[in-house]
């Protein structure tokens, strides 16, 4: 297919089923996918390799939640990887603004809508 280098997505999400479905879908769409089950794991993972072209970030997670992750990520890498928030909160947009994320999807969402978001904001 494309000769372009695969784009890389980091998914940070504590629900393993959501994580699995998203990974399978994005890989199907030709992305390279890395996953972390909380903010801490994600920060560890980012210590090596290139920064992802986009981060899909859940907010409510154990150990290190989305807010804490966003603060640490921005402090370390600024806005080098755009962050799209995935949240089940009623005020998803507000959540995204809180952490100056570039976009948001409200759970539950359609995979095709998510793909549009990814394509729109990926670096």
């Amino acid at each position, binding site marked *: 297919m494309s000769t372009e280098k695969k784009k890389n997505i980091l998914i940070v999400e*504590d629900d393993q089923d*959501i994580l699995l*479905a998203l990974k399978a879908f994005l890989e199907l769409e030709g992305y390279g996918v890395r996953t972390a089950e909380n903010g801490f794991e994600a920060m560890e993972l980012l210590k090596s390799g290139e920064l992802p072209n986009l981060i899909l970030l859940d907010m*409510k997670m*154990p*150990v290190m939640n989305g807010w804490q992750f966003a603060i640490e990520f921005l402090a370390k890498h600024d806005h080098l990887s755009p962050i799209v928030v995935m949240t*089940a909160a*009623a005020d998803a947009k507000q959540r995204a603004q809180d952490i100056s994320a570039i976009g948001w999807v409200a759970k*539950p969402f359609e995979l095709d809508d998510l793909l549009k978001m990814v394509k729109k904001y990926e670096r």
Partner: protein
Amino acid sequence: MQTEQLIVRSNQSGLALQESQWWTKAQFRDLLDSLHPGVVVHGANTQIVYSNRAASMILGLTKDQLLGKATSDPRWHFLRDDGVFMPIEEYPVSKVFASRAPIQNLVIGIIRPDLEQPIWAICNAHPEFDEKNRLSQVVVSFTDITAERKLKQELDTARDVAEKAVLTKTHFLDVAAHELRTPITAFSLLLQISKKNLARGLPIEMSTLSRLQGQADRLALLVVELLDVSRLERGMVQLKLEPVDLIHLLNNCLQELELRAPSRKILFLQQHDQIMVMMDQLRIFQVISNFLDNANKYTPVDRAIEIKVDDQPTKVRIMVKDSGPGITKKLQEELFNPLTRGASEHEERTSGLGLGLYIARKIIELHGGAIGVESKLGEGSTFFFEIPKKGAQE
């Protein structure tokens, strides 16, 4: 106007006077003394020249003590409606003397040296002038409203509590909706990816069906949790008390945890073979499982959970120690109330309705026991409960 020469025709049937009779000074004084409001008259030099019986009752001073007193005595204080001390220049009498204008329906608190709580009164004061328009006296009347005020405060408090409860319930619904959306999202995404796979000629995998089942179970559990709280709050839960070996029960709980988290290290220093306690087995199981689940959630994968049992003569104490991040003092206090897993939304750390510890508290309280947590930030937390051992050792 001089009281002694004052003559009034009465038409009040309540007084034992004939329609046509003139009032004597003594009868007039009796009338003033029979009034519910306190009446104090200050002469032109601000000193008290008259007071009735109710004034003595409200101010806590005899007539003799009152007469001759000026506007202020340092042992008595007045409060404003909002409970703040009133400066002397704001005292009703001072104000009327200064402004020559009446005061109407001013709420004041009276702090008496002999009472701990202030007396509250509605105060009216009006000036009287002589023929040369000089202020001749100030008549102050005040009605005790302490009881009414207390009632109003109680109503205000009750209303605040009710409003807070509504807010809590609203917040609760928000959180419940949020928590229900997570398994629904997983469910929906698994179905969506399965459909995409089917469309490409790929089969639906058994593991996907198992995951769907798992999320359906999780939804069902959330609903059970909601119903449980509802029943506990309405006092609809009856304990089935029977003598149970707590050590045996603990081991069952730990076995179940092992199924859910096979790699988790658990330290259980077993110093007792058997501890018989009167309890509702299923409910205590629920509490211990909740403690273990929380500890499992918050303890890093490579760290252990510690279980301890302290067998005392009258009660038994179960402790579950995690090496999680620890819990702030403020949060510790709120932890056993509904929906206070995170002090703020930004502190939300994990999924679940946050009702587990609240349910646990209710269950332990029904057993006549106590529940709590000891924690230091960075040093993990120890959740414990104790239940009385009465009646189980026969």
